[in-house]
């Protein structure tokens, strides 16, 4: 069931979605790239350097992360949480410099949540908290941002809002943004590239090409749902 033979590359300014059936290894793949879990096999190159050779502090300046689970302290204020994104740049005791404060303000502005900065996390809705976590990753000022299912727990409107925000951010900041998602319809509309993870193969291409080559037809077992290439959506098999 788990995908293997993964060979992909992501470029600056591109929004890339990772799509696949549950258990195929999307989260494992993203967590491995981000360095929070060791690689099972193979090699990850970041700017031609092997990921294992990059010190954790240095890696934290290259890749930022937004996770599905949020076991964070809900007593943190939005400003405190976003400021924690500056940890890789602060001194031994974590003091924020003027530059750090500027980056935090910029991150809040990019995600359009300046008015929330004094709110506590327990006062936020799921959608607002997701934006705060994205702002924290932006404050980390990395070239690549990885998000593991950033739209889970959100309603359809806020799913679209968060993914639209990611699209804008990739264009405005030039970051390579890569995220795992089950929102295939939205990903097809918004992403520059899609990584399709199947147990048999992992394919990376632009959405149109993937549709034309019929790759979406075999992403799920065909007994229940089918992909309609005309409407570019999945529908229940009749």
């Amino acid at each position, binding site marked *: 069931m788990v995908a293997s033979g993964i060979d992909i590359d992501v470029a600056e300014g591109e929004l890339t979605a990772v799509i696949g059936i549950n258990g195929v290894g999307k989260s494992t793949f993203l967590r491995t790239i*981000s360095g*929070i879990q060791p690689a099972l096999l193979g090699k990850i190159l970041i700017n031609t350097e092997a990921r294992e050779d990059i010190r954790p502090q240095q890696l934290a300046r290259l890749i930022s992360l937004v*996770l599905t*689970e949020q076991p964070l302290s*809900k007593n943190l*204020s939005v400003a405190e949480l*976003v*400021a*924690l994104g500056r940890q890789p740049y602060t001194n031994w*005791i974590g003091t924020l410099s003027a530059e750090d404060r500027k980056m935090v303000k910029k991150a809040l502005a990019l995600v359009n949540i300046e008015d929330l900065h004094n709110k506590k996390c327990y006062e936020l809705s799921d959608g607002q908290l997701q934006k705060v976590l994205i702002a924290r990753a932006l404050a980390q000022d990395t070239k690549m941002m990885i998000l593991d299912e950033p739209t889970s727990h959100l309603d359809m409107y806020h799913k679209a809002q968060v993914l639209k925000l990611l699209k804008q951010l990739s264009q405005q900041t030039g970051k390579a943004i890569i995220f795992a998602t089950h929102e295939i319809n939205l990903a097809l509309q918004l992403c520059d590239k899609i990584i399709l993870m199947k147990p048999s193969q992992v394919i990376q291409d632009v959405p149109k090409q993937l549709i034309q080559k019929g790759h979406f037809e075999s992403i799920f077992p065909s007994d229940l749902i089918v992909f309609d290439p005309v409407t570019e959506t999945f529908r229940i098999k009749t």
Partner: protein
Amino acid sequence: MQNSRPYIISLLVLLLCTVAAWFLNISLGSVNIPFMEVLTVLFSSEAENSNWQYIIMEYRIPKALTSVLAGSGLAVSGMLMQTMFRNPLAGPYVLGLSSGASLGVALVLMGASLFGGLAGSVLFSSWGLVLASSLGSLLVLLAVMLASVRLKDTMAILIIGLMFASLSSAVVSVLAYFSPAAQLQQYVFWSYGSVGDLSWTELGVLSIFWTSGIAIALFSIKNLNSLLLGEQYARSLGMNIGHNRALLIISTSLLAGSITAFAGPIAFVGLAVPHLIRQVVPGNDHKILLPAVIFGGAILMLLCDIVAQLPGSEHTLPINAITSLIGAPVVIWLLVRKRKFIF
């Protein structure tokens, strides 16, 4: 991001309260000494009454210093464990340190009949209980450290600590069951905790452990802040989880282990003070929380010691009972009044 003025004011208020509690602690006791005489002894060391001078210099000041070190040390170790385990019920003894210490002391006090001469001779030396308590804590610490190297899940360490506590309690219960009444009473008195029995030499040794533990906590401030996001985010911010976990365990062990060895298993301070401080100090930054918790622990312990001494009376109440009697209602009141999230 936020104005640093509220933090500075909070710390200044806590510092002033610590100084006030310190003077109050030294001024009050079973012997009534005028406050001006207390100041004279403190600042010129020449009192009208030589007994007063002896009481202040050899009894009250070491006791107040022990209260400051024990209260602040336990409070800091409680804060470290609460942040590391991301659990508001964690305290300095969550790793099983006090249970290990209790087992060591119980073996010496109540196991004397089982082990005969060796335990007896250790018991009669002035450092006997300190040594027994330290060895007990050390053995539990080594077991927890070994487990932490093998385990990836921090929560599993919490459970292992609780299991060690249960095991130790079980052995202590068996020893207590077979122990003569006099030795059982000695153990019970030790388990009440006491800050009034330390000599200047013992205080010196305790302060070395205290300084080492606090220094490690100070160097962990940045990582403690990262841990507020959870371990995975902390790792993605460049933190070495295993290394940091070991440092926090060592710091807690140095603080809680040494305090238990010298002053007995003092309950509640380590659990309650971090909560009290989070309610009164704005923000979650450990740069602010660490000094605030040091002051808060010292204040609570000094005040509890004053109450335990029952000023004007010859009796002394168990410090363990007073810390819980005073601390628990205050924490409940603050939590209900503020309605803030603990974590």
